[in-house]
């Protein structure tokens, strides 16, 4: 069968073709919203029109079969209109209030996970992991599934002092916004890479490879058309592997994950913040990463117990001080916690006023 004629540079379809009529009519005229339950909210327009949103989690990896099922549900309850959130949730956009309860009932029957709105955990931002990435040193989907099974109620019902944004990155490239999350997992290596000298000459640009190193640990070896790594300077970021595949950073028995905490992206109350190191290393333990899940649950529940209402994880830690964070969570403080990378001078303490 002949293929249709391709078009180039057309961009995406214009968004307005996919907006429900009530949104089209009230576009830019929303007055306020109310969270009705952990999985439902209503937005009310200046003129009184309402749009109801029902939010359900997705595992981000979706089969076409599941997408078709979501389509069927949206046709049955919301005239075929739906959207996805920036955190990979599905949102059913319901214009008819009477259809909310039947939709919720069917979602329950089909075992959808409804929730994620308000002061709780929303869906987890994560990367491809072993499912589909060459540089992954853990599996992102696997950790997310294991951790959210354990933290399930914090998505569906339980309240926290404020929103808690979780993320998992399967290497330090961080295709998700791990560096500014409340609690995040990032996979790390701990040993310098090995070099397949014969292939470096064939496959890599030497200056690019040398330039890829943030700590200047790589120098050229022109005689053998390869590079040499100064292991004392290497911080195992793996960027050399990205630009030069014969440099292999993967060591399955030594790789694992770090846990970082206290980041945020909104400007509410305090400026956006980077996440900082809480736990430098935990081993990969597929399929359920029990120590990683326990560590995250411990941090989350310590925050839930001690933070004031509306405090994000990072705001709580800044108020009590990091020394108190380590004391309350019982997390061991190590050499790895003291920065010796580019911004070291900004993180060392310059005051004698602190807590024991």
């Amino acid at each position, binding site marked *: 069968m002949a293929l249709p004629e391709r078009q180039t540079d057309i961009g995406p379809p214009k968004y307005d073709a996919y907006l429900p009529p009530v949104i089209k009519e009230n576009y830019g005229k929303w007055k306020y919203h109310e969270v009705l339950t952990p999985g439902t909210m209503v937005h009310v327009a200046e003129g009184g029109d309402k749009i109801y949103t029902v939010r359900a989690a997705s595992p981000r990896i979706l089969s076409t079969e599941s997408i078709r099922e979501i389509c069927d549900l949206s046709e049955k309850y919301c005239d075929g209109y739906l959207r996805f959130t920036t955190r990979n949730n599905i949102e059913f956009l319901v214009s008819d209030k009477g259809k909310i309860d039947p939709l919720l009932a069917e979602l329950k029957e089909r075992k959808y996970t409804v929730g994620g709105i308000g002061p709780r955990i929303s869906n987890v931002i994560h990367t491809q992991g072993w499912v589909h990435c060459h540089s992954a040193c853990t599996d992102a989907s696997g950790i997310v599934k294991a951790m959210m099974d354990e933290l399930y109620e914090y998505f569906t019902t339980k309240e926290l002092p404020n929103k808690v944004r979780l993320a998992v990155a399967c290497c330090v490239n961080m295709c998700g916004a791990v560096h500014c999350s409340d609690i995040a997992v990032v996979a790390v290596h701990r040993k310098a890479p090995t070099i397949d000298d014969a292939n470096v000459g064939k496959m890599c*640009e030497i200056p*690019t490879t040398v330039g*890829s190193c943030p700590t200047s640990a790589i120098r050229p070896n022109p005689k053998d058309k390869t590079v040499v790594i100064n292991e004392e300077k290497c911080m195992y970021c793996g960027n050399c592997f*990205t*630009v*030069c595949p014969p440099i292999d950073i993967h060591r399955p028995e030594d790789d694992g994950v770090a846990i970082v905490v206290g980041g945020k992206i909104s400007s509410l109350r305090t400026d956006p913040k980077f996440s900082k190191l809480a736990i430098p290393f935990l081993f990969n333990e597929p399929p359920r990463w029990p120590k990683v899940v326990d560590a995250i649950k411990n941090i989350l529940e310590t925050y839930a117990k001690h933070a004031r209402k509306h405090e994000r994880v990072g705001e709580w830690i800044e108020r009590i001080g990091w020394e108190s964070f380590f004391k309350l969570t019982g997390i061991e403080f190590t050499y790895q916690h003291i920065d010796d990378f580019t911004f070291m001078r900004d993180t060392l303490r310059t005051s004698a006023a602190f807590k024991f």
Partner: protein
Amino acid sequence: MEQAEIQDLIFAYSEKMKGKKKLKEKDIIKKIMADTNEDKAVVKTALREMINVGKLMYSYGGGASSVEIPSEEYLREKGMLK
């Protein structure tokens, strides 16, 4: 200068640099502009024409993109080489 002549120069330069340096579109345009005194837009159009018909192709490695002469495998896959 005729577009075909510019394209010959572009191809010759790409061939010369093959295996030495991964050329970005900009590297090629700058070099040919310097060699011919042609406008940037003229050189860019000539280059793009070559990419559109598979005389050159965009390549990718280590997170960055470049332009190179296509392999036979690529041309076969696009039905340009039987």
